[in-house]
């Protein structure tokens, strides 16, 4: 049975690997959580981001939510803000797309153009 006391151990381990993160401005991932975002699958998308970040032990990335990004038929939508770069908006997100965005955009700095809102409008 899980107990709250396990948290002390997790805390110790986590604090050993948490470093520098406050010194630099990190990447922000923002998931749209309006009603149609949630209905379209925003929750598994958000959890997929957290899961990948945990698996790869990526530091200085924060995942947050916003009420609504604004285009219901393109939900779930995700915005990625990297310091010093323009915001990138991804549409019709799925947990599979998350894996690629983490690998190519978050880690290597190249946005996945075919998933962006710009690609849809063409």
């Amino acid at each position, binding site marked *: 049975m899980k107990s709250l006391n396990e*948290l002390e151990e*997790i805390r110790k381990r986590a604090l050993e690997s948490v470093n520098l993160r406050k010194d630099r401005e990190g990447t922000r991932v923002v998931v749209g*959580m309006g009603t*149609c975002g949630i209905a379209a699958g925003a*929750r598994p998308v958000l959890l997929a981001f957290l899961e990948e970040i945990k698996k790869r032990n990526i530091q200085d990335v924060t995942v947050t939510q916003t009420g609504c990004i*604004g285009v219901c038929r393109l939900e779930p939508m995700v915005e990625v803000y990297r310091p010093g770069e323009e915001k990138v908006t991804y549409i019709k997100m799925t947990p599979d797309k998350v894996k690629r965005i983490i690998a190519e955009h978050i880690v290597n700095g190249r946005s996945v153009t075919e998933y962006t809102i710009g690609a849809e409008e063409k």
Partner: protein
Amino acid sequence: MEDLSLYILDIAQNSISASATVIEIFVIEDEEKDKLVLTIRDNGKGMDPKTVERVTDPFYTTRTTRKVGLGLSLLDAAAKACGGSVVVDSQLGVGTEVRAEFGYRSIDRPPLGKMDDTIATLVACNPMVDFVYTHNTSRGTFKFDTRDVRQKIEDLPIEHPDIINWIGCYIREGLNVICGGGNT
């Protein structure tokens, strides 16, 4: 919405938009009375009586990005479809309570879904808000409170991926005990 845990996630978004700092979520499964009751209570900015009256009307919203507010009217429709109802109780400056009742055995009742995912999502995205989740079935009660977690992790941020992961596992395990592993 596919399941009740997604409705709960959505209704809690209203509490977050209303600047709540404490959000309490109750799920009561009362098989004997053939009822499933969801309650989401917050200490956000609240609504005046006139607003409360209109709140389940899809054409009422204070949002600016589109003209209809879907959240509460969807919940209301889902509850009515299985012989239940939604009651909204609110006071300006004090907070809001949304209570949705569903017929437990109604074939139209959406399944409960993944409450572990809903709570993990809420905590991860709203580390400044405290969440209290209480779930009651004939087999017992499960309770989770982010304040208990904070006490243990001290200076580590609650949104740390390892903590969010732990919270999901803890809730899943707790619910397995009181739901008997069955899928409500």
